[in-house]
Structure formats: C-alpha cells, structure tokens
C-alpha cells in the first residue's frame, strides 16, 4: 500500500470542513497539483478528496460496506466487485508489460468469499475491462496466463 487515501463524499465542502475541524491540514500546491489533506500526527499519510460520485455513479450503493472502526466512527468501502473492475480497467489502459493491476484484481477475486458474478461482469464491462482476464486469458499478451 501507499500512504494515500482517496475519499469520495456526496458533499465535498462538508468533507473539507469536517477534515479541517478534525485537525487535518489542507495541503498547498497550484492548479492541478493542488489539493489533499494530512494530519500532523500522521505525516506519512495523506487524504485526497476525489470529486464526483463513486466510480462515476455506477456503483450499486446497496452493496457498499460500512466498516465500523469505533462505536462513533466508521468508513464506507466500495464492494470488491467494483475494485476488481477498476483494477482490470487500469490494467487494460496501461502497458501490457505492467502486471500489478491485473495481479491485484486476481488476488481480490481469490480472497473474496463470495462474488456476484453478474454484477462483477457488468461493472468490468462498464469500466472497459476484459472479464476473461480473471480466468487467465489475456488477449493483450496473446497467451493463457495461469
């Protein structure tokens, strides 16, 4: 993992206010390099506020996973199907020699105790990925990958 957390909020301004009130510092930067927050107690981590709805609004919100950290605090994570679809799309958009996104997608598929395959394939197609990659068929490499 890296030290950055991407956060999506339905109200960007409310998230910004909440972070600042919690002691986060808004980072500098100019133009397209601007943005981001960090907490002084954890300088080796950062938070990036991602504009717009989660995965362009394509995520089925009923599948979101609420992770309770403490009785007063929780985070909400996307369903694993969306994460797999995102990684496959990133793999497809990058050089074929770079395998890490494909490996991440395959690892998540293995780790998931259950997957909604219909939803998974729908999301992979929506993100522009190739569902067959999960079965080891990589057309870009022109070979079976096991």
């Amino acid at each position, binding site marked *: 993992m*890296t*030290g950055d957390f991407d956060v999506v909020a339905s109200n960007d301004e409310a998230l910004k206010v909440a972070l600042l009130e919690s002691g986060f510092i808004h980072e500098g*930067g100019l133009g397209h390099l601007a943005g981001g927050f960090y907490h002084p107690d954890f*300088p*080796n981590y950062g938070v990036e506020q991602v504009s717009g709805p989660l995965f362009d609004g394509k995520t089925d919100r009923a599948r979101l*996973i609420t992770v*309770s950290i403490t009785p007063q605090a929780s985070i909400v994570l996307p369903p694993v199907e969306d994460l797999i679809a995102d990684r496959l799309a990133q793999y497809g958009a990058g050089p074929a020699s770079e395998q890490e996104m494909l490996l991440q997608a395959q690892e998540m598929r*293995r*780790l998931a*105790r259950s997957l909604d395959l219909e939803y998974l394939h729908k999301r992979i197609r929506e993100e522009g990925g190739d569902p067959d990659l999960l079965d080891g068929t990589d057309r870009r490499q022109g070979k079976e990958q096991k």
Partner: protein
Amino acid sequence: MIVTLSDLLSGIRERKAELGIVDTPERTEAMRNKGSQRTPSKRAMLARIEERALAADIAPPKAYF
C-alpha cells in the same frame, strides 16, 4: 453490510490461510502500483507525503510516483 474493522481484518487473514497465501516482500512488490498511470496531482501528493515523513524521521510508505 456492516462489519467491524477487526472482523474484516481477521476474515482476510483467515481467508489467506485457507488459500495458503503467504505475503512475501516479492509478492507485495509484484502487486505494488508502479505509478505509470498516476495523475499529476497524485504524484505531487505522494511526493509531499515522502517529504513530510522524511522530515519527521519516519519511513514513508513505499510508493512509485
């Protein structure tokens, strides 16, 4: 679905054990984002994280940017 963080993490650990997955530095590195598709803002953010961590004498999380 609602799950506690401890249950989520223990579930992942149990699943890895069932599958015989052992995290090694080599496996982790193979799956690490090499950064070729990062946006300029993400590259800048990761650079700032590294700068802050080093200034605080903390090892920054490994990242390519």
